[in-house]
């Protein structure tokens, strides 16, 4: 499916609403969907409910009550004492460079394999796509040992090697996500007319100008979709920082919540507040960029 079709798909809920006014009755369907939606909201709803109640209230009235205060104290406490400001910043330090690098490198590769025909382009594309489908744990031991045995000056990294640095996390995230992005972008670029670059060729434009001035601007919708998706993917990545980062205060937020479980032991209100804080950025991105996100997901998985 191309972006255009994805757009069509996104436009269709409008038609759904219009024809919804037709006297068509699906009582059974409605009841089922209502029940399922309610069930779906329970875990998240329970977290928000718990997070809004001070631990004193729940101790006094129990968790299964609506008595007592409701306020944002737990959020404030989690933010200040739980170190959430640091964790968030760490997430930004990893996510932003990793997403930009991934998109840049993937666009180079995608251009080369989709706009220029040469012997190994399909082989390379298969290699990139396959790499992205592996379970990351398959690569864990060698990557960990490579990072550990890669000596660098102590002025560069306080571990004396690449462990405990953001660079290794960014590099591995980039390498791992590049395959997926290359695959999606190359499909997108393949769908662009060959005449576009043909005309540029006649004008004497080199490969770089074809890439930079013709193909890249046309790929903006694909970049928007993939960028949104990758921000969420890398922000949500739990495993690579877990493997490489050893100091607790350098962890990004998704990996750090694991430690909060121990830190906030028996204060479920605080843990719930921490969980809700962690969800907020993804929900904001989802609400603002839902179209891009959905387009990205369907783009990546619609070519069969």
């Amino acid at each position: 499916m191309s972006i255009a079709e994805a757009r069509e798909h996104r436009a269709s809920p409008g038609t759904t609403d219009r024809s919804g006014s037709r006297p068509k009755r699906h009582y059974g369907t409605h009841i089922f969907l209502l029940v399922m939606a309610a069930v779906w909201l329970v875990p998240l709803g329970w977290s928000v409910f718990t997070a809004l109640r001070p631990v004193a209230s729940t101790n006094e009235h129990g968790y299964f009550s609506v008595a007592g205060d409701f306020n944002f104290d737990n959020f404030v406490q989690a933010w200040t004492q739980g170190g959430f400001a640091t964790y968030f910043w760490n997430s930004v330090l990893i996510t932003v460079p990793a997403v930009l690098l991934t998109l840049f490198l993937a666009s180079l590769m995608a251009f080369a394999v989709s706009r220029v025909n040469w012997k190994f382009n399909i082989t390379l594309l298969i290699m990139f796509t396959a790499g992205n489908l592996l379970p990351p744990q398959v690569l864990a031991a060698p990557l960990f040992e490579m990072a550990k045995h890669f000596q660098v000056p102590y002025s560069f990294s306080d571990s004396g090697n690449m462990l405990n640095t953001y660079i290794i996390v960014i590099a591995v995230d980039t390498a791992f996500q590049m395959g997926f992005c290359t695959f999606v972008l190359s499909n997108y670029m393949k769908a662009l007319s060959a005449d576009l670059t043909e005309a540029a060729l006649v004008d004497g434009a080199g490969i770089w100008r074809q890439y930079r001035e013709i193909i890249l601007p046309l790929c903006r919708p694909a970049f928007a979709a993939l960028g949104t998706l990758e921000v969420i993917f890398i922000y949500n990545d739990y495993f690579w920082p877990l493997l490489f980062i050893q100091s607790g205060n350098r962890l990004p937020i998704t990996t750090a919540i694991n430690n909060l479980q121990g830190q906030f032991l028996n204060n479920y209100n605080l843990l719930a507040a921490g969980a809700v804080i962690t969800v907020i950025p993804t929900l904001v991105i989802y609400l603002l960029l839902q179209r891009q996100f959905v387009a990205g997901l369907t783009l990546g998985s619609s070519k069969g």
Partner: protein
Amino acid sequence: MSSTARELIPPEAREPAAPVRRAKGGRVRRLSRRDKVVLSLMVGIPTLIELAMVWLPMLMSVGLSFTRWNGLDLADIRPAGTANYQFIAQDYPPFWPAVQHNMLWLLFLALIATPLGLLLAVLLDQNIRGSRIYQSIFFAPVMLSLALIGIIWQLFYQRDNGLLNFLLGTAGTPQAVDWFGDSSVNIWAVMIAATWRHAGYVMLLYLAGLKGVDPSLKEAAAIDGASAVQTFFRVVFPAMRPINIVIVVITIIESLRAFDVVYVINRGTNGLEMLSALVIQNLVGEGQVIGVGSALAVVLLVISLVPIVFYLSRTFGKENQA
């Protein structure tokens, strides 16, 4: 790189008959020396990163699985033959439970989560009032990391203060179940939490797939007197073949990748053994047994190659023939 760069031809020149010879003819001159350098860099840099960070480690995993090593000094790596594989199959208690749990996970996603996602998609694809709101609700968990899903469901599943025990009327009584802690039920509790996310993902993909099905197919089936159910299973579902393949692959790969949620709960022990978690247990901590961890990783790799090869041959098969 230079020898391959000589064969670069623009895509419109792609013809099945004698492509190489023609490429060496007039068309090549379109690429200047500078273009070749640029193209080599465009291909070379990402390829080097991909090789160094993904393919080399994968091969090293295979290599290390035949050695004995504590991860400290490179000089200490000793050949071990197939000893690590014998060890995990015969003397490593969590191995077979982990294999079973991975299988169970796959079956649960394939038989419950995926059909549920498909059902939601089919229902929401009808002209239902509030379809978009439903879609947003079912899709919301897909935005969350699996690690966070572990925490959120922990709050729901706890023994004394969890909502589930309260709803069941067992909270505070000896019958209360610690859903994530009790090794006889926790794998089921975790799979339900995973379903919460997986079904929404499947729903989204199938909604896109259903939109792509030609409506005239459905009309033709209706004219032929097919019921709605018949139309779906005989006409619509087969027409979504490309999406079906993607869903099959995603379901298998997700079940092999199941790691974050069990690792957050208890590091993949006590009823929650998974292959991916066992790999990591052998790499971190005091007794680093890289060889054993790598052997487990290779088992995971070999199983993963089945859906990966299936998917790649489906996706790239046609292009290769062309």
